[in-house]
């Protein structure tokens, strides 16, 4: 129902408001250590990115933090991540690594954030949930003008609650490719654990970015994520989008699951997570 509420509010609140640029003067927040990474059930290189936060009105990309020691352990294995030579701050496992469903993974990082010559240690952990089942996908013209719905058939594990993250690929290219466009939901709305013709994406055919052309190969990836990670994404999306005086609450910093060891006082943001996923796809050949 929350999805419905959100769609409705979006429609109901199309006020004929005007906008104008305004100068805002604020103090700069103290720099934060930003860590974001994941290990999944896919066999691939898994990555952790480490950067430094900046002033809100900074004009350059975030500063990467190099020369960190990054280790992921779990399922009886240890993966040492090495910094990508072309992308400073991006630490990767070897290729061919995968996480095991039902295991808990620990992230360990050692780096000198404040540059005092004495490295600090950071850690986080995440459970890797069992995967969903993906049977197939389909397409349908939506009641919303000029929209096509992407439908999903599949099933969810028989857990008390599941948190889903959906990604849509067109010809191998991720369409919801930024955090604010991630589609995350819980299964509270589902009538049972079976997913039958669930509308997951609404593609506006008047928008070039979303237009489907017959022959396009469309793939939907369904990930099972932890509740903590789902909340991290929701909270981050909420803060990225901002709020309004009628429906929004006061803004707040997005909590992290990354902790400093030994009581280091470094302010930290970001998240480390583990998740499992499955995909299904088909070639788009138009809708009636």
């Amino acid at each position, binding site marked *: 129902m929350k999805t419905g509420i959100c769609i409705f509010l979006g429609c109901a609140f199309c006020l004929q408001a005007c906008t104008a640029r305004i100068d805002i003067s604020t103090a700069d927040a103290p720099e934060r250590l930003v860590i974001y990474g994941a290990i999944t059930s896919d066999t691939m290189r898994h990555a952790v990115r480490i950067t430094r936060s900046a002033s809100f009105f900074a004009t350059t990309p975030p500063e990467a933090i190099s020369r960190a020691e990054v280790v992921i352990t779990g399922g009886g294995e240890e993966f040492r991540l090495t910094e990508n030579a072309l992308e400073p701050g991006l630490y990767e496992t070897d290729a061919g690594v995968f996480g095991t469903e039902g295991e808990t993974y620990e992230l360990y990082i050692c780096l000198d954030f404040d540059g005092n010559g004495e490295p600090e240690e950071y850690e986080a952990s995440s459970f890797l949930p069992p995967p969903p089942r993906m049977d197939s996908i389909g397409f*349908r013209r939506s009641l919303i003008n000029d929209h096509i719905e992407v439908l999903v058939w599949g099933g969810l594990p028989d857990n008390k609650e599941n948190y889903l993250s959906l990604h849509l690929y067109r010809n191998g290219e991720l369409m919801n490719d930024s955090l604010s466009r991630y589609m995350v939901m819980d299964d509270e709305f589902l009538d049972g654990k079976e997913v039958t013709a669930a509308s997951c994406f609404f593609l506006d055919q008047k928008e070039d970015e979303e237009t489907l052309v017959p022959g396009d190969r469309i793939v939907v990836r369904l990930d099972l994520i932890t509740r903590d990670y789902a909340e991290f994404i929701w909270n981050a999306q909420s803060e990225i989008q901002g709020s309004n*005086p009628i429906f929004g609450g006061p803004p707040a910093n997005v909590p992290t699951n990354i902790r400093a060891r030994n009581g280091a006082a470094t302010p930290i943001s*970001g998240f480390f997570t583990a998740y499992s996923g499955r995909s299904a796809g088909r070639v788009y050949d138009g809708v009636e």
Partner: protein
Amino acid sequence: MMRWLLFFLLLSGSLCAQERRFTVSGTITDQVDGESLIGANVRVVETRSGVAANAYGYYSLSLSPGTYTLQFSFVGYATREVQVQLRENRKLNVSLESSGSQLDAVVVSSKGKGAHVTDPVMSVEHLSAGTIKKIPAMMGEVDIIKAIQLLPGVQSTSEGSSGFSVRGGSHDQNLVLLDEATVYSASHLMGFFSVFNNDAVKDVVLYKGDIPATFGGRLSSLLDVRTKDGNSRKFSGTGGIGLISSRLTLEGPIVQDRSSFLLSGRRTYADMFLPLANDENLRKSTLYFYDLNAKLNYRFNDNNRLYLAAYHGRDKFATNFAGMDFGNTTVTLRWNHVFTPRLFSNFTAIGSSYSYSMQLNLNAQLKEEWKSKMEDYGLKADFTYHFTSGQNLKFGYQAMYHVFIPGQGGGVGADAIIGRISFPHTYALEHALYAAGETSVGSRLKLKYGLRYSLFQNISNGKEIEFLENYQATRTETYAKGKIYHSRGLFEPRAGLLWMLSPASSFKAGYTRTVQYIQMASNSTSGSPLDVWFQSSQNVKPQLCDQYSMGFFRNFSADAYELSVELYYKGLRNVIDFKDHAQLMGEEKIEQELRFGKGYAYGMEWMLRKNTGRLNGWLSYTYSRSRRKIDRINENRWYRSPYDKPHSISLAANFELNSKWSLSANWVYASGNPVTFPTGRFQIEGDYVPIYSGRNEYRYPDYHRLDLSATVQLSPKEKRFRSELNFSLYNAYGRKNPWTIQFLHEEQAPDTMYAEQIYLFSFVPSVTWNFTF
């Protein structure tokens, strides 16, 4: 409790003379339409004592046998003197003649002459329907709540909103009553208009702190709106056609001087133009609201009168795939009974309901509905015993049964993939027993005292009840359906004094404790129609407010000018806020989203008001601060409440240019709303996530706005059918007051952010044709 009652009776009784007295009592009404004049003064010339008529226009004076001159007065009416020989109890009903035909007799107050200085109640604002009508209105819609937002100590919660904050309190801390029934959501069209149709309104009183013991249940204020009884002398009508709505009010006698009726309706018609839109979605859309007020009254005899009042209003929005409607319904049945000339009573049965529903119909799988509802059923018995002139005791009992249905709905139809959900209904009983009195001690000192005992009882719905520790459920209990499983009672004392410094000036002081047992689950500043309310419980303590106030009051030039300066301090306990990123919409376990703490507010209000004359209106300045400290919010540090606005100024002026034209203007200035701004950022998956300052550490730019209006009479006042045209210009100098500020990426430089304000209104001109017959 009995000891307190005894104390009141003794205090009141001991101050009464023990000699034999007779009572003169009756009602004070308008000569033309028979409407009772709430707050009209009766003064005994010989004893220099007096009383004010109550909410039904009833007065009672007890005097020693003799001959007296009674002076009946009300602002805007010609004073009338009546000689009374009192050798037995007398009934004396009096009608006063409006002096409104004279240009210099325009009135903006709805209270008795001099009451500003002589009434021991402080922190109270009266507005007449006439005053409200003169204030320039947004889109021509005359609005009570927009009018009270111009009063000192009252702030709009956001641009254009019908939500209001009183002395730094939240918008859900205002008890809004329409003919004694609670109105839970007093706004239409996402808050831009209030539910009150001014044509049906007789009297508006806002208590900003010194809430009488008769009322309770909210911390900050009481907005008491009373509708007209209906013209008991002749059939008449009022109406208007505006740019976005039209309205019509009909009233008249059913049985001459015995019963009358009032019927009033208003509807917007913006949706009627939607079929002309180019956009197909827009053509299929619905967008309107309406209000209906009805009132009947019947006077059986001088001692018995019955009133039946009802209100129903609803907003409807719909597109071809989604819809929403919401609104209030209230019904009040009142019976005034005069047991003896000294004992006046009113018995009230109240029903009030607020509900909303939403529908979504994207396809057969995504066809959903969601409904929420609140219902109140109440009974009240209120008594006033008049000991002597100026000394009375009010006492009574009230009970309200609350039924809250926080949400139910889900998928519709066999193909819906979404299941059905019904959040547990919550039930509670709210009782109150009260006694309050006023006593004169000598000629200069008046004492006001009262005690209210409120009791809130949660009633089991037969389902599991959670008990929380550290905001997490630690155990559950199940009680039989209908069983009271949790009770909480609290005393709410009231006290005040008035010291007459001179016949035209006084000093007042007061103390009020108020308790709030139900509150809105909203963490936005102005609230929305989708907000649900929740009750105090085993996990949620009632909120408490102790307010101390004092002030200086002075009238000039035969009450034409009123000056007041008031100071107040409010200490708040068990203050409720919501955890960071709280999910309140569609959330079953709201109690786990709450966080508790304390707060305080203080301020000063200054007001100069000119009640009569061709140029009338008021100028006010308010200094106000409001802060909170809530567990786990803002790292447990004190922070500004969303309603902390240090400085605000309101100027409302009306000038009667001649018998044909009148001009009005109001100008408001207020410090910007507190806001939490981003001060840093980090990047995740291609998006910049903000890092924020402390809660409400910054402010929006200051708010100011000028509104203008001009009214031209199109027909002479002596004609039966009269009409006028009102031209208004909202935000006359086009100030871009930010409604909100958003942060966006520069298109050409995605790593660079900029701030953009959204402002709702620039110039908003409108024209309305009003008529009466």
